[in-house]
């Protein structure tokens, strides 16, 4: 049933068998899963897919599992809506929101990558999983790992939003808050991975983990009526999801499920930490060394990664697709969160605010054309980042429980 052929180095092309390895021994480049597409094409027809359960394993031929999936059976296949009100507000014709803010069970796109990593970790015989996280990944590893019955060591930087911290602790993993920013957490986790035989979902499970992000793009293709959009705007932190959406469209094309891909990929980051945007603007495919702005000055913490491991592949996808990258200020991020809530009834977290703010900017710049089809990637839920909007939303109108008070205080009669 499995269409997996093995792993291949993204830099030098050397092949490796499936195992808990993630860097090429020769050039230290990252490894990526290879598939037998001819075999996948036989069972992945539009009709066959349509008859399958609505979860992320719907496209399982192109996911790196050998056996039957038992994790994340309720994850994925999130709502995809045509955003008429927002389109009117932004002055575009054909606008869509793919809403992973209601992914199950932890309300972010990480509910796609984690089940794949955990399923593979179990196949490879691990009993302990871990991660380095800016918050959403911590929630997902804690929850999916709990259900899978695995021991969990989760590492976050200090100072994350209460929603992300409590949304991890509630599943009772070992949660470690590391002094410093995400990049410091990353550094520590790399040392831990070298020493302990644990499956770190975004370290030694990374070739499998990242493949789970393709399901976001597969779903967009299917939900758009089996085609890829003209434009797609996507948030960037470590650089996993954007290149994998780009890859997913090409896989759908290769299987003959969608017409040829002409999508332009647009990357969104917060101005307080925008190494990938900076690289795109400089025309460089090397991500410049960069330290994020201090936490107190950063509204967006989900995307706060100064050393994005897959940053170069974001730049590559943006360039190949003739796309672009932009950044949003704290003010723009918060305004965009409120805009999405007001127009479409969707409450996204700061990463979603960043993405929408950047989409708006790209439309104003004329880089996204008003008559084309555009998808905005909403990848997280506003309930986790209450701190960002707390002072901005006003207060309820307090009244006594009488009709007179209602009419006087509320209707102003």
């Amino acid at each position, binding site marked *: 049933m499995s269409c997996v052929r093995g792993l291949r180095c993204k830099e030098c092309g050397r092949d490796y068998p499936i195992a808990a390895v993630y860097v090429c021994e*020769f050039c*230290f480049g990252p490894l990526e899963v290879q598939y037998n597409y001819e075999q996948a094409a036989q069972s992945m027809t539009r009709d066959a897919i349509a008859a399958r359960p609505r979860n992320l394993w719907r496209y399982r031929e192109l996911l790196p599992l050998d056996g039957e999936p038992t994790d994340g059976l309720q994850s994925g296949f999130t709502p995809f809506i045509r955003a008429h009100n927002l389109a009117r507000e932004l002055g575009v014709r054909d606008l869509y929101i793919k809403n992973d803010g209601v992914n199950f069970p932890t309300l972010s796109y990480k509910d796609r990558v984690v089940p794949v990593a955990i399923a593979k970790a179990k196949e490879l015989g691990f009993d302990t999983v871990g991660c380095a996280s800016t918050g959403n990944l911590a929630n997902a590893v804690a929850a999916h790992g709990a259900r899978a019955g695995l021991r969990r060591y989760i590492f976050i930087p200090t100072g994350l939003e209460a929603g992300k911290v409590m949304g991890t602790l509630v599943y009772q993993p070992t949660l470690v808050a590391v002094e410093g920013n995400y990049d410091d957490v990353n550094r520590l986790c790399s040392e831990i*991975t070298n020493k302990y035989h644990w499956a770190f979902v975004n370290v030694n499970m990374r070739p499998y983990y990242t493949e789970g992000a393709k399901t976001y793009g597969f779903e967009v293709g299917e939900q758009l009526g089996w085609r890829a959009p003209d434009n797609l705007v996507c948030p960037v932190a470590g650089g996993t999801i954007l290149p994998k959406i780009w890859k997913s469209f090409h896989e759908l094309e290769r299987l003959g499920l969608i017409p040829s891909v002409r999508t332009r990929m647009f990357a969104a980051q917060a101005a307080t930490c925008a190494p990938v945007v900076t690289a795109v603007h400089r025309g460089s495919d090397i991500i410049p*060394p960069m330290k994020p702005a201090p936490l107190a000055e950063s509204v967006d913490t989900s995307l706060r990664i100064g050393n994005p491991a897959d940053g170069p592949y974001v730049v590559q996808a943006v360039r190949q697709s003739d796309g672009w990258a932009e950044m949003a200020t704290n003010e723009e991020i918060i305004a965009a969160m409120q805009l999405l809530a007001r127009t479409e009834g969707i409450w996204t977290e700061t990463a979603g605010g960043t993405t929408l703010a950047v989409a708006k900017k790209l439309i104003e710049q004329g880089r996204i054309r008003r008559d084309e089809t555009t998808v905005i990637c909403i990848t997280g839920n506003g309930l986790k980042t209450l701190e960002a909007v707390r002072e901005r939303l006003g207060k309820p109108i307090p009244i006594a429980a009488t009709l007179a008070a209602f009419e006087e205080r509320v209707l102003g009669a």
Partner: protein
Amino acid sequence: MPTRKVLLKYPEHLIKEPVLFQMAKQFDVMPNIRRARVTETVGEIVAELEGAADNLAAGIRYLEERGVQVQPLEGDVVE
């Protein structure tokens, strides 16, 4: 001998400086370069550093003090 796989990033003003060689000499660390790229504004070297544990740590600290960003590669994390 312990080894460390690292990604070194050089800001513009260091691209023309033999920083890695100076580190290697001063701390008796052997760099084995696997990949390298340089643009106008930034340079990047992927290498394995081999040396006694103390020397490795001191050498990496030296690079950072000179302004080179040192990212661990084995155990390199994506999110």
